[in-house]
């Protein structure tokens, strides 16, 4: 064999990807597939007064409509912040609740409120139009520089302060500045980064009632992490009853390291409905 150094190494996966024989999450379809369509907040911040799905549940093809109340009733845990930071005073960072389906408040446009599961994506989407969510719109906080002076968003988080972080040596830095000839103050603006892969997020969960096992296909850079979080933190199923498969993944750039609400909801709904549930767009 020629030396690997300096010689061409052809990729093993290219032929299938080039001939349309790859298998990405959205390409996986089970027998008796059902489709999930999410109802999302149109408001940056609001209180949820009421979710009325009495019409939607009777619409053609609808299997179930699940809301934040079901999440609470089933004790499904919230999404976690996978990083722990301590403030300068030694206190832990404050992490607000982020349920997979909101029941009390929504805190950004697109926050997940309910899910309609139906036999086809069209039927799920049509029924979603019939779900009426009654919101009391609240004043949103949209700018980090004003956030500490704005309305408090979460009960237990005064001044909207998650953490106040310090790296380095405050005293030594002060000393250096005190001795400096000239001190210039600038505001640094860090652009928002959007790791936007070409393959959108996707999930498809299958539940086998006889073995009580969930198999979740998801477009993930880290299926092991998804398995731990969805079992240990969200409590959807014990780890030995949850299998997570990442088939071909259409890019991630970091955005697919972490599991999102939709993966949790699809896995939970599949188990609850004793069926499969595939995430639709929306």
């Amino acid at each position, binding site marked *: 064999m020629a030396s690997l150094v300096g010689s061409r190494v*052809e*990729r093993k*996966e*290219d*032929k299938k*990807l*080039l*001939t*349309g*024989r*790859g*298998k*990405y999450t*959205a*390409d996986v*379809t089970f027998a008796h597939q059902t489709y999930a369509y999410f109802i999302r907040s149109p408001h940056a911040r609001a209180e949820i007064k009421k979710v009325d799905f009495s019409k939607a549940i009777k*619409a*053609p093809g609808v299997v179930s409509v699940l809301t934040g109340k079901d999440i609470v009733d089933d004790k499904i845990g919230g999404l976690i912040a996978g990083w722990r930071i301590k403030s300068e005073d030694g206190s832990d960072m404050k992490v607000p609740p982020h349920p997979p389906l909101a029941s009390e408040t929504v805190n950004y446009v697109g926050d997940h409120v309910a899910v309609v599961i139906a036999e086809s994506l*069209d039927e799920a989407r*049509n029924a979603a139009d019939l779900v009426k969510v009654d919101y009391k719109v609240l004043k949103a906080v949209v700018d980090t520089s004003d956030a500490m002076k704005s309305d408090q968003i979460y009960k237990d988080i005064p001044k909207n302060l998650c953490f106040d972080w310090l790296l380095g040596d405050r005293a030594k830095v002060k000393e250096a500045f005190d001795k400096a000839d000239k001190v210039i103050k600038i505001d640094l603006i860090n652009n928002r980064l959007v790791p*936007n*892969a*070409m*393959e*959108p997020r996707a999930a498809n969960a299958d539940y086998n009632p006889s073995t009580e096992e969930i198999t979740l296909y998801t477009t993930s850079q880290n299926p092991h992490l998804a398995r731990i979080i969805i079992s240990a933190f969200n409590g959807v199923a014990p780890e030995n009853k949850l299998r997570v498969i990442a088939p*071909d*993944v*259409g*890019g991630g*750039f970091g955005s697919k390291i972490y599991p999102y609400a939709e993966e949790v909801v699809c896995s939970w709904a599949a188990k609850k409905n004793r069926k499969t549930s595939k995430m639709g*767009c929306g």
Partner: protein
Amino acid sequence: MGQFMIKVGLEVNGKKIQKEVPEHTLLSTFLREHLNLTGTHVGCDTSQCGACVVHVDGKSIKSCTALAADLNGSKVKTIEGLVKNGKMHPMQEAFKKLHGLQCGFCTPGMVMSAIDLLEHNSNPSDKEIRDWLEGNICRCTGYQNIVAAVKEAATKM
């Protein structure tokens, strides 16, 4: 909310197909969901990314923005229809050889677009290739090797 069904007759990759589908069925949905040809990808569903490009009567189009019923009687070619007698199309070979793909999600659309280009311009310049592929977005490769692959394919087609 009853669904109106409509008959769609197409020739897909050389095979005549007749299906009754909801009238609003997009070509991309028709191919992926009704024919199980999942090589055609949907990246945006809004005509921006080009992952869904297929050929209709020899021209490349974005299949997420065409109604299947509108194309009745047309000949459609998808990425699955390029392999002949087990051999990849020169464009596929060139992408493989020159590393014109990483995750492969944009690739089917990219390959279908690029073949259309070479079919009416057999020796395009770098600029012509880049201009032509403007509607195909790739987030992995940085495009250099895609352009190189199209140039290589031009010598073989």
